[in-house]
């Protein structure tokens, strides 16, 4: 079957008004898993969990399986105790589990058994999201469409689908080999090239493949991706004062274009929890999204702890290790945190105007304290999403998203709501200027950047 390079189909917004961008509600809810419907009025916890520090190898494999068995059992016990109305478990494979596809499938089956039991015994609506590791960057330059890593990844997706995954996701890395270097050097040409040319091409190809795998396994849905390797890298480097926050904020907005490619190839959501660009995807596609924020502090810092919840359909903890705490093991403790977060959101949504009011408080509590939060307000989301759908190629969309994000930040500064340091202001001006200077077509950019980045990526991997 022919796989198209890039199929664009979104030219309008599914959600036009900021006030219609609410948590728990999506224009196109998703029924999946065992009786779960996401985006139909309630927010559900999505619990993500991982191993403590240990080697993963044949000799330790029984211990690995025992950890996952224990985590699923304890998470679901706590969820049932708290009367959650639904739950998603996410299994993010670690690299050796994707390298050995049968290992990932074995854990998938273990987790699905626990969910099936909870559904049968307690009528708990639930689903299992499985996210193999994108291991295609094992050689330099990475081969995205051929070679052993891709073969293993594809087999991992297939075996996990067969073993009981309800939702397939991935945090894909196409374009990252260029983006990493461009980000480190603050080179906006390289950033736009990675996010607007390479990444969407890889996403389109990869998500068409994932769509085919889902089609071959009835009941398995093609979830969504995350710009984790791009925008979350920028977010963490900004947190460490290594990059300007304004750069991370603009990269976040621009990264939505590559994440949108999954939906353009048939993904139906929920997008990945660490895709903080999710609200932009929700505004454009109307599909439900997962988000993470304050209750993911076990995994990493973010300056968007409350605002990230404002428009979510699943609320996640990102990743927590199976270590002992006073109240039990960490995964079940974080299940409790998420359950209470969701209970509050769902209770507020029962009152007339309650969801909007709570959403506005969550937005207001973060919005102007960080540029990265400022680009995630419902107003900003609609502005950025509208800019994306107003243009017609990923390259132009990335530039448009960047310009819209810059304008959001400039307006915040002008209105004295957003306070930036002198250095941050200099960078904002630099980014603004850089976005004005791009050639009209991506081919010209490709030529311009050949000397600088040509050796870092494999052209055939991107259909170039």
């Amino acid at each position, binding site marked *: 079957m022919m796989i198209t390079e890039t199929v664009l189909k979104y030219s309008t917004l599914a959600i036009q008004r900021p006030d219609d961008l609410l948590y728990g509600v999506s224009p196109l809810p998703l029924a999946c898993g065992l009786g779960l419907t996401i985006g139909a009025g309630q927010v559900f916890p999505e619990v993500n969990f991982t191993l403590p520090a*240990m080697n993963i190898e044949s000799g330790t494999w029984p211990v690995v399986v025992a950890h996952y068995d224990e985590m699923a059992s304890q998470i679901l016990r706590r969820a049932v105790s708290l009367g959650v109305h639904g739950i998603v478990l996410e299994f993010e494979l670690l690299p050796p589990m994707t390298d050995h596809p049968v290992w990932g499938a074995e854990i998938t089956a273990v987790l699905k058994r626990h969910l099936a039991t909870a559904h049968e015994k307690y009528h708990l609506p639930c689903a299992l999201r499985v996210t193999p590791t994108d291991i295609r960057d094992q050689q330099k330059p990475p081969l995205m469409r051929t070679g052993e890593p891709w073969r293993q990844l594809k087999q991992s997706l297939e075996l996990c689908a067969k073993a009981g995954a309800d939702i397939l996701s991935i945090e894909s890395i196409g374009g990252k080999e260029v983006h990493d270097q461009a980000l480190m050097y603050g080179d906006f040409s390289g950033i736009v090239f990675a996010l607007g040319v390479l990444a969407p091409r890889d996403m389109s190809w990869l998500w068409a493949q994932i769509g085919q795998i889902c089609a071959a396994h009835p009941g398995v849905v093609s979830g969504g991706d995350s710009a984790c390797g791009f925008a979350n890298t920028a977010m963490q480097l900004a947190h460490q004062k290594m990059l300007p926050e304004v750069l991370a904020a603009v990269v976040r907005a621009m990264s939505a274009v590559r994440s949108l490619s999954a939906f353009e190839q048939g993904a139906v959501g929920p997008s990945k929890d660490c895709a903080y660009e999710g609200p932009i995807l929700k505004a454009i596609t109307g599909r439900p999204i997962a988000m993470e924020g304050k209750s993911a502090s076990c995994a990493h810092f973010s300056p968007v702890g409350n605002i990230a919840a404002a428009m979510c359909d699943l609320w996640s903890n990102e990743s927590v290790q199976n270590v002992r705490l006073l109240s039990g093991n960490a995964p079940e403790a974080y299940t409790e945190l998420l359950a209470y977060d969701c209970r509050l959101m769902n209770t507020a949504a029962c009152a007339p105007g309650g969801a909007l009011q709570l959403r506005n408080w969550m937005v207001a509590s973060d919005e102007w304290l960080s540029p990265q939060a400022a680009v995630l307000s419902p107003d900003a989301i609609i502005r950025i999403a509208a800019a994306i759908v107003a243009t017609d190629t990923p390259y132009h969309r990335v530039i448009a998203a960047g310009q819209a994000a810059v304008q959001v930040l400039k307006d915040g500064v002008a209105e004295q709501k957003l306070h930036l340091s002198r250095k941050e202001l200099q960078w904002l001006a630099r980014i603004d200027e850089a976005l004005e200077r791009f050639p009209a077509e991506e081919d010209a950019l490709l030529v311009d950047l050949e000397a600088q980045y040509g050796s870092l990526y494999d052209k055939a991997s991107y259909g170039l």
Partner: protein
Amino acid sequence: MALSKELFDAILNGDAKRAHAATETALAEGAEPMQLIADSMVPAMDEVGKLFEAEEYFVPELLLAGRAMKSAMELIKPLLVASGQKMAVRVIIGTVKGDLHDIGKNIVASMLEGSGFEVIDLGADVSPEAFVAAVKERQPHIVCMSALLTVTMPAMKTTIDALSKAGVRTQVKVLLGGAPVTSQYAKEIGADGYSENANGAVGLVKSLLAVA
């Protein structure tokens, strides 16, 4: 006062072309290569480090300064080699086995290179055997290891054990970094140092080897 103010400013401002041209001019005017390094290049990178510590510079400014330093070194290195003088310190760096995350390691590598060290980057997912082979072959002073995943941290210990078993552990200082790694963990597994950020890693290399 820097021997070449032009070179000092070029590095401080991350201008590689200007740094290259300033070095050419200074050498043509008879400046001693080692003196250029000591009087203009090292002070410029020290100033860059201070600006980073003061949060006046971000990593891009730091790396561009490193790139400018490197472009100047391209002219100076052959002269040092010809006169029998050696680069001060050689560093081997890699992300440990099972871990594909390498941006943190890349930043450290670039900053070390920018600070005048010879850096051999082994890449990501580097096996203990590959670290050992590189140490035997390249005879570095320092081995830097990075891990982002908690489940790949044990590979740091495996690598240190492999260096010991191969009889080369005492020849090198081993430094660790990466989000889940701690100073305590570094001590526990027998590393010589830990840094939580890239600039700290450069300082640590300098202090461990008492490099000015």
